[in-house]
């Protein structure tokens, strides 16, 4: 499993690719920048694309919208969520 900083960078790359952010690089996204409501200004369709991305890239299934809301708050919280969930799966 990559370290947290590598994971944050990878998630930024994936967001830029999947959500088609033109002229943006991972360096343009702060670890604690809000992804929704201000910050990057993502919307509910983008949230669904993040769910699809987590499933295809990391094998993580997200079903509960209300709990996902907190995990999707920023790149930092998303990276911690991915790291924890993949670690749990590796231990199983």
């Amino acid at each position, binding site marked *: 499993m990559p370290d947290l900083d590598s994971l944050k960078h990878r998630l930024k790359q994936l967001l830029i690719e999947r959500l088609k952010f033109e002229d943006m690089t991972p360096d343009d996204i702060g670890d604690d920048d809000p992804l929704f409501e201000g910050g990057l200004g993502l919307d*509910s*369709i983008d*949230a*669904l*694309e993040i*769910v*699809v991305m987590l*499933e295809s890239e990391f094998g993580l299934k*997200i079903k509960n*919208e209300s709990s*996902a809301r907190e995990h999707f708050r920023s790149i930092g919280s998303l990276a911690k969520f991915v790291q924890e969930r993949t670690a749990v799966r590796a231990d199983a």
Partner: protein
Amino acid sequence: MRSPLAGLPHQIPFRATSRIEVVDEERARGVFHQSAADALGRGIPIEIFVIEAMAQTAGVLAFGRSSEPGFLSAIDEARIDRALCGGESFRLEVRLVKSFGRIHRFDGVAFDGVTEFARARFYLAAQDEAPEENEGR
């Protein structure tokens, strides 16, 4: 037996799909007939009706068992290979990729016989619940 078309809010002339068959919980098929070469006459390409027909077909999967209204929220990566002519018919296949919250993502393909004619990714959304009448008072 109730037709899946009866579950759509669209009726003629706003219903673009002429037949819908639900294959399973994630897939449905439809048929689109183009009756005129220039149905809109306002510079809007009639080919867009094929995408609308895909969305209506998908609407039966997303909202067919529910009384809540939904709408076509977004279209992405749409590709239409050629202009279409009046009298042509297309077979539609839509697949539910993922649902999250009130949003449903679908992939759709339209076939001219066995040849792909158009494809698109599109999103259907359930309408937000109406706020309580006394909210904020």
